């Protein structure tokens, strides 16, 4: 790799920082939204109502078999048509790249979070749900008060690792013209002809942030482990 030109970098760092903040905001919002939707999907997936469990399974399997870029462009380009059809309006509403990005990542990540949460619940000893029901808790209470809290503690490290994957996946939003870190660097690189400096910097930023986060997740996982 050629050296990074610090003078070029000094001139444009505010734009890169703005892009990085966009990336972090999108990661956080989609992470929280995806987790909430993922928990709902996991509970639906484990429901005794056959149709509910089946519907959740179809959603999750479909999302996990489609490339993310296809979902991203699908929401961005077909979302307006779908909304027009649902609202029965005369023209397709504008949703724009930002909203399409948020919707895509919540919908897409929820499928992955669902599988993590489901594995966490299914992995609990059978005695936990039996005991909760024997104590007279309703199935809903057993899920909310006994199973989910334990499952969440078990899977927190895996959930956070998925959040790091999400942080990297968010880099794709530049393809639909949202300005994240990568897209900001791309625009500057094309304007100033500074490919090496810009893409090199972005690579280093991702490497450092992802490495630091995964070290943190590893440490947290060791602290959270339930002694047996």
């Amino acid at each position, binding site marked *: *790799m050629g050296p990074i030109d610090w003078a070029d970098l000094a001139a444009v760092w505010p734009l890169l920082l703005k892009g990085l903040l966009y990336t972090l905001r999108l990661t956080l919002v989609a992470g929280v939204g995806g987790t909430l939707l993922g928990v709902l999907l996991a509970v639906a997936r484990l429901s005794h109502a056959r149709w509910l469990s089946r519907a959740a399974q179809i959603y999750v399997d479909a999302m996990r*078999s489609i*490339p993310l870029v296809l979902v991203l462009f699908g929401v961005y380009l*077909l979302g307006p048509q779908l909304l027009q059809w649902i609202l029965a309006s005369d023209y397709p509403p504008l949703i724009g790249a930002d909203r399409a990005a948020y919707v895509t990542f919540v919908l897409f990540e929820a499928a992955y979070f669902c599988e993590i949460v489901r594995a966490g619940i299914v992995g609990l000893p059978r005695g936990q749900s039996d005991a909760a029901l024997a104590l007279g808790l309703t199935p809903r209470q057993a899920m909310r008060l006994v199973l989910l809290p334990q499952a969440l503690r078990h899977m927190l490290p895996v959930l956070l690792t998925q959040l790091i994957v999400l942080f990297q996946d968010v880099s794709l939003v530049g393809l639909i013209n949202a300005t994240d870190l990568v897209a900001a660097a791309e625009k500057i690189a094309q304007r100033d002809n500074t*490919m090496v400096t810009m*893409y*090199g910097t972005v*690579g280093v930023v*991702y490497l450092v942030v992802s*490495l630091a986060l995964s070290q943190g997740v590893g440490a947290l996982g060791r602290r959270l482990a339930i002694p047996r």
Partner: protein
Amino acid sequence: MAIASLLQPNIEGTGTWAGSLLIGTGLTAGVVAASWLTAAALGIAVGLARTSRRAVIAAPARAWIELFRNVPLLVQFLIWYYALPEAWPGFKQALMRLDVPVGQAAIAVLCLGLFTSARVAEQVRAGLLAVAPGQALAARALGLREGQVLWRVLLPQALRRVLPPLTSESMNLVKNSSVALAIGLPELFLRSKDMGESTGDYVTAFGVAVLLYAALAFAVNRAMVKAERAVALPGTVGAGRS
């Protein structure tokens, strides 16, 4: 409406959009196959090195894994295709000697292959660590040399354990290959996007792309399951099922 847009002539003027999507599927399949081989070969080598007790061998392997795992695939594509040729004239000359689509395909194979090799290496490492320690001790006690212990005893057992996680990694490779649209490789997704733009019928274009990606993932899954069964040891749960 769906059939009609598939039968419209494509922008290259080489036939219909249906044909164009099929050619894209073939290109995606070819890139996936070549990067799979690259990733498997490099992944096994790096995974082996990662478990070495000698730091001079283990440390570079660890760096390799962290480097290719912690930078997003899109950024790796941009670095390989746009930044590296600027920083390294020799690389640029080699790239310029190829036709544009061939160069793009070569970069895609390189990029996807190295990206996936880091993940394969982690699986190989886990597989090696999961082999019972008595196996290596017994092999040495029988008088096998270190190379033989690895090649004849540890690797055959470790690689069998690696196959199931490798199946899902191979299906990820099919999906990840669509990121190559960022460097303009005319693979399946880029062609379906072009079809949507040209015909205005994104529903059909993306719907067919979803089906073709599912078909590719299914084919990869079948091939991996076949491989798993072919090498299953007699007496294990995986053996004898078809």
